[in-house]
Every structure is written in structure tokens, then in C-alpha cells.
């Protein structure tokens, strides 16, 4: 079973090593002669205003809420999509039709949200 996950572990390993190595190597090998100007957020630009703990707009939350529902839809497409050829050989065209109906039902909701302006950013 572990052999199946070997590619996942390799990608995970490369990602961790790459992320840690790039940050560490710039700390270790880069010359560091800090001045107050260099340490400021923008070396040449506007002076930063306020704190980093600003409230974000509620619009992000609404979009995230819609995103989760689309996320859940994709979850059910996933077991169908990864082995579509095998499923098609086994059950024929009905595999395509049942997924089509599922998606059409969902797209009605998509159109409703679109018409209502749920994706608008204002």
C-alpha cells in the first residue's frame, strides 16, 4: 500500500526541502548589513499606515461560503473522473448521463447565483 503513496511522499519531501532550503540558504549565504531604511516595509515608497491586523471585507467570506459548496460538488465528480474509462467499459453511456444530470441540477444553482449577482464584487 505504501508504494502507491510513494509519489505523494516524494512531492511532499521536495516541497518541504525546497521551502526550507531557499529561506535558510538566503539567511546563511546572503550578506546582511541592515539599516533602518532597509528594514522598513517599503524601502522606497509610502510609509506603512495602521496595523497588520485590519478587518477584511465580508465579501471574502461570502465568496468562500459559495466556494465550499462547489468544493463539495467536485468531491463527488472525483471518484467518477479518475476511472472514467473503466466505468464506461463497465456500465456504458449511463455513466455519462448520470453525471450529466448531477451537474445540470447543480448548474441551475450556479445560474441562480450568477443572476442574483452572487459573484459580483461591489
Amino acid at each position, binding site marked *: 500500500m505504501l508504494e502507491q503513496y510513494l509519489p505523494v511522499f516524494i512531492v511532499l519531501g521536495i516541497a518541504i526541502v525546497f521551502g526550507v532550503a531557499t529561506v535558510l540558504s538566503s539567511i546563511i549565504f546572503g550578506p546582511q548589513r541592515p539599516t533602518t531604511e532597509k528594514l522598513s516595509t517599503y524601502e522606497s515608497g509610502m510609509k506603512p499606515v495602521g496595523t497588520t491586523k485590519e478587518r477584511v471585507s465580508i465579501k471574502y467570506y461570502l465568496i468562500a461560503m459559495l466556494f465550499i459548496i462547489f468544493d463539495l460538488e467536485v468531491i463527488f465528480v472525483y471518484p467518477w473522473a479518475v476511472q472514467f474509462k473503466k466505468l464506461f467499459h463497465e456500465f456504458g453511456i449511463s455513466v455519462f448521463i448520470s453525471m450529466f444530470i448531477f451537474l445540470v441540477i447543480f448548474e441551475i444553482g450556479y445560474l*441562480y447565483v450568477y443572476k442574483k449577482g452572487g459573484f459580483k464584487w461591489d
Partner: protein
Amino acid sequence: MTLYDIIFYLFALVTISSAYLVVTVRNIVYSAFSLLFTLFGIAGLYALLGADFVAIVQLIVYVGGILILMIFGVMLTNKITNVQIKTGVFQILPATIGVGIFGGFLLAVLLNTNWLNLNVKDSPATTFQLGQLLMNEWVLPFELLGIVLLIALLGAASIARK
């Protein structure tokens, strides 16, 4: 100790240590970010138990979706980061009694359960079987699920836009 065990303990360590950080860190933003590693560790444990589809769902829905909502919830709330969260020790006696009873109950269950002795180490991938079942035996519930998701989407849309 096989490779399987090493990977299991690695994921268990990630899960438990980050879960500890979730409840002890005073800054709620750090707490929410620690939760990311807890959920990721649990996904790894699911994968090790042979439930590859559940692991993917855990990653996509919980790490990719629910956690985003939580972090937005933190970021939306005014001055939540300035609130001092109490993580000190108080009410020791009632807490000891409560945790003792609950812990004893859990231990009793743990010792008396007939653990299902599945050989998960060489179980096949479940995603294809799931696809087969969804397309054949459970195709009506599958379509009904589309309607349930549609209702959820309509509800979310009508909350989002009055």
C-alpha cells in the same frame, strides 16, 4: 518497527503537537493556522488506514474549505487579535474529577473493544470502488445529493444577496 509504523508515528506527532498548539497558543490567528496541520495530520492517518478517498475529502473540504472560513471568520472580527484568551489553569478539582471520569470511560472502552483486525497495509485503492457504487447501486441517492447541494447553494446565495 517498519516504515509503516514510522510514517504513522510521524503523522500522529504532527496531529497531536499541532492540536496542542491550537488550544494553548494565545494568538487566535496562530491557533487557526495550527489547526491546518492538525487537519493535515488526520488526512495522513486516514490515508494510512487505507481510506484514500476520505483522506482526499479531508484535504479538499476541511483544509481547503472549512479552515478558510474559520480564518476569514477570525480576520473579519474586529479586534479579535487583541482579546486576551485565558489559557491558565483554574478550577483544578472539578476539572480533575471531570477529566478523570471521562478518561476512565474512554480507557474502559479502549480496553473492552474488539478491535477490527483489518490488514490495511495492503488494501486496494477505494476511489474506483466508490465510483462504481455511485454509478450503479447508489445512482438515485447520487442525483438526490445534487438536489441537496442545489438547495445549499440557493440558501447560501439568498443569505449572501438579500
